């Protein structure tokens, strides 16, 4: 059987695109929530209030150093099975939501650090100038520091997004039927075309991830703050 036949058999027997679509959806929602949580934690870590800085630092260090698989398994076995917490009445949606929640919580730590590295690209004088015209901490952060920090953080944020995209396969541990689950199924039932199976999923992620890298490189140049 030629490679072409192998691939066409796989694509005929399985909804490969549908499986990857789950990963893309996981990526999208987790990226949105990770960004929001990460921005708040970054704000805490740069705030003048020591207890908030401590809390933000603790979040990053604890979450970043916990394996994502453990968070996923904990969501399903501890939060759902033991504590009966549900995030949706729909059985499949519930697992999907848990996976998004755990991906968001985990990647927020990396988003926070990416934003903080962006904040470091903003000269101290920008904050001093903002304070000297009477802007308080939050308006200074929102109007002056963050817009410049985000532009300086596009590249590290892109890296975080790429890592997130590939980490959506860990959602398998929370019983979400995404691409890696389908891959296991193919290996189980079609192990005679094992090479084609691996290529399908490897290339699938490459196809999703390459544009992310290209777009972030382009965007980081386009929106660079000229000083």
């Amino acid at each position, binding site marked *: 059987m030629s490679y072409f036949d192998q691939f066409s058999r796989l694509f005929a027997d399985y909804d490969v695109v549908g499986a990857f679509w789950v990963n893309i959806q996981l990526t999208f929602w987790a990226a949105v929530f990770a960004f929001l949580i990460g921005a708040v934690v970054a704000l805490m870590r740069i705030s003048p209030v020591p207890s908030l800085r401590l809390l933000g630092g603790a979040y990053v260090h604890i979450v970043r150093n916990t394996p994502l698989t453990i968070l996923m398994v904990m969501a399903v076995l501890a939060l759902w099975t033991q504590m009966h917490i549900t995030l949706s009445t729909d059985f499949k949606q519930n697992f999907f939501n848990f996976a998004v929640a755990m991906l968001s919580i985990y990647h927020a730590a990396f988003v926070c650090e990416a934003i903080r590295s962006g904040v470091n690209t903003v*000269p101290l004088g920008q904050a*001093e*100038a903002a*304070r*000297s015209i009477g802007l308080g901490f939050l308006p200074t952060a929102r*109007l*002056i520091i963050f817009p410049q920090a985000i532009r300086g953080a596009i590249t590290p944020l892109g890296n975080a997004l790429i890592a997130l995209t590939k980490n959506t396969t860990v959602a398998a541990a929370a019983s979400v039927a995404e691409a890696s689950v389908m891959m296991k199924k193919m290996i189980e039932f079609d192990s005679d075309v094992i090479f084609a199976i691996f290529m399908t999923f490897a290339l699938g992620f490459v196809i999703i991830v390459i544009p992310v890298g290209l777009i972030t490189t382009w965007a980081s140049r386009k929106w660079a*703050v*000229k000083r």
Partner: protein
Amino acid sequence: MSTAAPEGGTAAISQAGAEVRLSGVNKWFGDHHVLRDINLTVKPGEVVVLLGPSGSGKSTLCRTINRLETIDSGSVQIDGAEIPAEGKALAELRSEVGMVFQSFNLFAHKSVLENVTMGPIKVRGKSKREARELAEALLKKVGVVNQADKLPAQLSGGQQQRVAIARSLAMRPRVMLFDEPTSALDPEMITEVLDTMASLAKEGMTMIVVTHEMGFAREAADRVVFLADGAVVEENTPEEFFTNPQSDRAKDFLGKILNH
């Protein structure tokens, strides 16, 4: 603190200057005693130039007046009111004390016009139209109104610093602090900034200026305060200070900078 002042137009850009009084101000950076028992009163409308060798504490002193630097003891008062330590009250005070920095510090992601309208809109709650009119009047006054839509990085240093002055003036400050405003400028840009400052001085703004520009000190200042090692060593009218310095430190300093 009332901020009643006529709005709009190029006239009456600034309002009545305030009095600044520092008494017994001390500050340490670790073991380093950067400000030693500073007592200094700047009268409303007075222009005071702070002079001194580098490391004498003149920039730090300037920055304590809007609390960009905290002090360890003593008091800083503006029109008899102690400057607040933090929070909303401090932000309010800062909005009435203009500050011009050595490195301009224009908001790099905002246009020139947006730099100037930011404070009036976000701090004073003015409408966009009102803020724009005020900003255009101020940019006209400092001679950069034709650059209003550019980004700061597209302007020369002298233009940027004049925009920075306009940004401060848009808050209708009662005191203006200048922290080495011309030190980062190419020589041919210095005059345009000094001219802008001199015209402000004429309008009766209370100004505290850290500078190495002796010409400006001579012409625009009412008083020169000479600092060395964090202490006020000598203060006098510019004429007296430059022609007849009393302290050895001042003689030594002037000898070094005026002999070229």
